């Protein structure tokens, strides 16, 4: 098999009812519903190799979740070609469904009132796993995610972090070749997030399974994905290695200076955007092209003790991407 996922010129439009505010609006929308077309994905193309771990980032409503839903067969594409493991996802054939899994951080698939082990038993039958395989997979996942003690406790009584780890087991019992994760760490505390991330990282390496994840949490993306796809307003604006993201999107560099006196310190804002002043340290952000000039000016006009020029940290680049402010910068 060559490529795990092929997406070619995919477009997805939603039709939504628009309701005017107030009671009159409600009545009007009943009589004459007003439809609006929302263009969620506009002609996107990409492909993913088996074993890749790809992170989707972009602001709210950019189309990340929509992409995952189309790829898993939940949404019918308006236009374009998609192939996942050589299947057309929309047909949702049983063999296809047995090879994929979708985790939605906000939706639960474990039986709320029963211990998780009961749900696992059900999934064993649903995915028609042989007993020895099921036992082996379960044993392994339980160890990796450290959940042995909570297997027999009603899911409703568990914390969100514990539950999320069990949800992951439920979706991985059948060893899917492709794993779609939509906000897997949403609502978790830092420790729990780290546990999930470590697990996904090891899982991806160990089984060479393809993982696509969307997240609001930039730590997820920075720590997990080597390749990122940035989506904004339904379009792919970046697809590549994480490190290249910085040089492409960070239009500014960071200058850090240590000053020997506070003299003229108010004037320093003329040279670049002041990000932080905590004497003796001043951090400035300066356009890439003029960074040398700015540094020279600093040395000339201010009592500089030390000066360094750095790239914008990757977290910050992503943060700006999340805010959707790319267009303004371009």
């Amino acid at each position, binding site marked *: 098999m060559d490529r795990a996922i092929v997406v070619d010129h995919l477009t997805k439009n*939603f*039709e939504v009812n628009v309701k005017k505010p107030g009671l009159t609006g409600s009545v009007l929308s009943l009589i004459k519903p007003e439809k609006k077309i929302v263009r969620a994905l506009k002609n996107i193309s990409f492909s993913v190799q088996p074993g890749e771990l790809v992170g989707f980032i972009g602001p709210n409503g950019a189309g990340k979740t929509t992409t995952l839903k189309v790829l898993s067969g*939940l949404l019918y594409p308006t236009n374009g070609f998609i192939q996942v493991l050589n299947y057309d996802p*929309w047909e949702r054939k049983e063999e296809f469904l047995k090879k994929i899994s979708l985790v*939605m951080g906000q939706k639960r698939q474990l039986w709320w*009132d029963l211990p998780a082990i*009961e749900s696992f038993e059900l999934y*064993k*039958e649903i995915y*028609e796993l042989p007993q020895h395989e099921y036992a082996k997979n379960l044993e392994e996942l339980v160890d990796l995610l450290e959940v042995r003690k909570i297997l027999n406790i009603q899911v409703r009584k568990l914390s969100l972090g514990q539950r999320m780890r069990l949800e992951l087991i439920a979706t991985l019992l059948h060893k899917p070749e492709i794993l779609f994760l939509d906000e897997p760490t949403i609502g978790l505390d830092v420790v729990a997030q780290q546990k999930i991330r470590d697990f996904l990282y090891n899982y991806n390496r160990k089984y060479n399974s393809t993982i696509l994840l969307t997240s609001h949490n930039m730590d997820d993306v920075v720590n997990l994905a080597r390749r990122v796809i940035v989506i904004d307003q339904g379009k792919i604006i970046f697809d590549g290695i994480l490190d290249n993201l910085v040089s492409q999107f960070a239009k500014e560099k960071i200058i850090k200076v240590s000053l020997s006196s506070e003299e003229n310190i108010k004037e320093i804002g003329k040279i670049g955007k002041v990000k932080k002043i905590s004497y003796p340290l001043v951090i400035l952000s300066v356009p890439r092209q003029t960074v040398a000039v700015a540094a020279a000016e600093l040395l000339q006009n201010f009592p500089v003790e030390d000066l360094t020029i750095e790239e914008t940290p990757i977290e910050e680049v992503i943060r700006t991407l999340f805010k959707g402010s790319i267009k303004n910068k371009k």
Partner: protein
Amino acid sequence: MKKYLQVLKITFQQEFAYRLNFIMWRVRNVMQIFLLFFLWTSVFSDPARQFFGYDRSKILTYVFGILVIKAIVFSSRTIELSRIISDGTLALYLLKPINFFKYWFTADVASKILNLSFSLVESILLFLILKPELFFQSNPIYLLLFFISLVIAVFLFFAIVFLINMFSFWAPEVGWALPFLFIVIIGDFLSGSVFPLDIFSESAQNIFYSLPFPYLVFFPLQVYLGKISIPTVINGMFISFGWLIVLWFSMKYVWEKGMKKFSSEGI
């Protein structure tokens, strides 16, 4: 099919997890029978009295029959479907290699088995307490027809509940209200589980009989009691089976439409 056996098992456990709800639901059913029982025993205080073709033993059998048949026909998990559609959990079901209809039907069967076993125990207890004279059908043909009519009733109810719940595809906010109204109005009244429908005028009865609802409770009980002639029974079976076909295909059709809606809006 081991898959569905496991669905059966987990649904049992789920029902047990809500023990109190389940018991309250059973209590409600038993209370209803108590009320009806005392109402009809006072109407039929004279054992020789006949009313709308019922004598004392037949009307009391009707009352007990309601308890058992409601447990078989009306017990359902499919009523949760509207919630699953409106909160989007449906997506998770769609991504499992399992047939959605079979899944829910199996869950219903689990609920039916559980309710039926309880209703049988309740009937025996009530029988011991109230010591009513009951009518036992001995004609095997009527018993066979009774059994067939019950099977039709079960599938009819499934299709009706499924259809009503699918309303959530288009109006997620009214999701729960509609099935609820259905259970209260149609379920109890038009199906004959409050009063036998033959106390109504003939023209009203004709209308009822052309609808699918009496075939859920009233008709099977009429067959058991042998109150209608074999040709009338056969005729009723044709009507109810006709309804079953119509509703079953509507269910599949609406499902397709709903899926399209679901997939174009991603609710």
